[in-house]
């Protein structure tokens, strides 16, 4: 069972919020800890899924905003 602190560090890792030394340290740990690596893989997959549901607004909305951006 991965400890809470490590899970939080893992979240920081996949969101690239760890300091360089900690990032490197965790990267090394991933190579030697299958359970940690599995958790990391799942988080990365989840990020991938979250990116897959990104949607742009309609062109009509974009055009309406751009029209509102005109100074006159």
């Amino acid at each position, binding site marked *: 069972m991965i400890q809470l602190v490590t899970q939080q560090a893992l979240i920081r890792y996949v969101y690239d919020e760890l300091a360089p030394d900690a990032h490197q340290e965790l990267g090394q740990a991933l190579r030697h800890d299958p359970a940690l690596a599995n958790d*990391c893989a799942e988080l*990365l997959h989840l990020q991938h899924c979250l990116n897959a549901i990104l949607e742009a607004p309609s062109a009509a*909305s974009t055009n309406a905003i751009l029209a*509102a951006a005109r*100074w006159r």
Partner: protein
Amino acid sequence: MNFVPAASAAPADDALLIARYVAGDEQAFTPLLLRYQTRVFTTILLIVRDRALAEDLVQDTFISALRTLRAGRYTENGKFGAWVLRIGHNLAIDATRCQKRTPTISLDARIGGHDTSTLTDRPRHDYLLTANARREAADQTPEAVIIRHEQNEQLRSLIQELPNTQRQVLLMRHYGEMSFQEIADATGVPVNTTLSRMRRALLKLRQRLASGGTAAALLMAVLTCGNPSALLPDFSPSISTDADDSTRYATGADPLCVR
């Protein structure tokens, strides 16, 4: 382990584009809009789950931001993306409160479906596929497209089912690109609480989504390049407010109200 700020949270030229726009260069707003509208729209849509309403709210969001810029009251230097997303987030939360108070408004309009009849007569669009799905559909079998569409729908539903505090952190971090420290500051809770909420949110989503072989492939890619953020998409190329809007946001119960 130490925090470092989210490096990609604010492209360096946001401030320059804002300065140009405020100085009268209308065209300077276009790249800002194109850079952030997808994340703002997605965040709003995940909260209200009504495409027509989300289209209205994304317009309201950016128009509100434009008013603040024009009035010279923009003070979020270097944080334009996070700021405009917070406006959109708060408008969406307000809208869902109105929906709950107004039972005649359809709550069944699904993001992936065509039933978008809600507040007013609004143009209908092609909702069947996400932008990403459209790009990928060309070299996918119909079955794969349908499965991906269903998975995306499932993920949207799961996100909406998250407790508000967890969903808030998830949306702000993933789509708003706010750092965990920035979210902690905005919500008035310790950063460890923010991380804990994010962990619980991700855990719930993970438990319900099957990853197949994609997860392992992504891990290998990260270990090879050493940079998880390199796998995230590069979003292509945001509003407060007149006095009424500012008051509305500042007095809302949501801790992420724009001030």
